[in-house]
């Protein structure tokens, strides 16, 4: 099936508010809400860094697809959560709804456990809106 969620201005603003409150205020560097075609729907940054979000989203969509195919091979439907750890920065991926991903880029000052908790809360609030 092809992907066709459309967002109006108000939805985008509400999603931005949620991501700001739950994640950027927590100290996360960058959040990207994207679809699996690689489109960026919402992107917020804390101002300390600027990433090439369009390329990141394109690669993240491919990566997520590849990992889902791996999941199928071992008999899982999908791996709904992915995490790549770097020395300074790390990336956390989480599925929001079918075809939508939330990407979070954060540094050592944010603990993974707390981040996961906040991502889960943000996703719960976003799901109500779409």
């Amino acid at each position: 099936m092809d992907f066709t969620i459309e967002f109006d201005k108000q939805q985008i603003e509400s999603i931005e508010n949620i991501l700001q409150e739950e994640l950027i205020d927590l100290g996360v560097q960058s959040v990207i809400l994207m679809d699996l075609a690689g489109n960026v729907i919402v992107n917020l940054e804390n101002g300390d860094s600027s990433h090439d979000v369009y390329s990141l989203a394109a690669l993240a969509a491919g990566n997520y697809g590849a990992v889902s195919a791996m999941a199928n091979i071992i008999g899982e439907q999908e791996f709904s959560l992915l995490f790549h750890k770097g020395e300074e920065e790390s990336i956390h991926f989480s599925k929001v709804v079918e075809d939508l991903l939330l990407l979070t880029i954060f540094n050592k000052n944010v603990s993974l456990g707390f981040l996961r908790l906040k991502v889960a809360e943000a996703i719960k609030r976003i799901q109500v809106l779409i």
Partner: protein
Amino acid sequence: MALINPKKKEVQVKIVYYGPGRGGKTTNLEYINKKFKKRIQNEMVTVKTYGDRTLFFDFLPFDIGEIKGHSIKVQLYTVPGQVKYNATRRLVLRGVDGLVFVADSMDLRREMNIRSLQNLKENLETFNKSIFNIPLVLQYNKRDLEEEGIPILSTDTLQRDLNSRLKAPSFAASAVKGDNVAATMKKIIALTVGSLRKKLE
């Protein structure tokens, strides 16, 4: 389908270069990247294996200005052409808005072109899309090989093999030299953005 952000007044359009392995899809993007450097803010992303073959895809984002008050961001992708990478090709096709089929003009590749086009048709069907009503441009690449004495297919033969039913716009091109690379890209952008115009009104 293209993603429209009504808040930022921005449209993201996905265009995929498809075709048989070693046909010149990546070379098309490399040429565009070089030629239009000023308008491309980000680096071209490419996921390659040993031997310089595309493993996953190449990706090149491109700003083409405004249409009806919306800034248009075109995202050019290629797929890996090798037969064994079909799962990856399908992933890249997800959400595609426009397609360039890069055919290899070499005599030896005649069968490969036909098979790759058939594969495109089948992969589009898995997303409930038809090759007959998606914006599509054909490019007959490697026309320069003729000068080197390598046997190539005539454009008539290529038209008959690939375009007799599709009747898509087509270009004889040389991605290595840059002949008709920009023309191919401009055509597919015009067709794809044209198909969105109604939505933006």
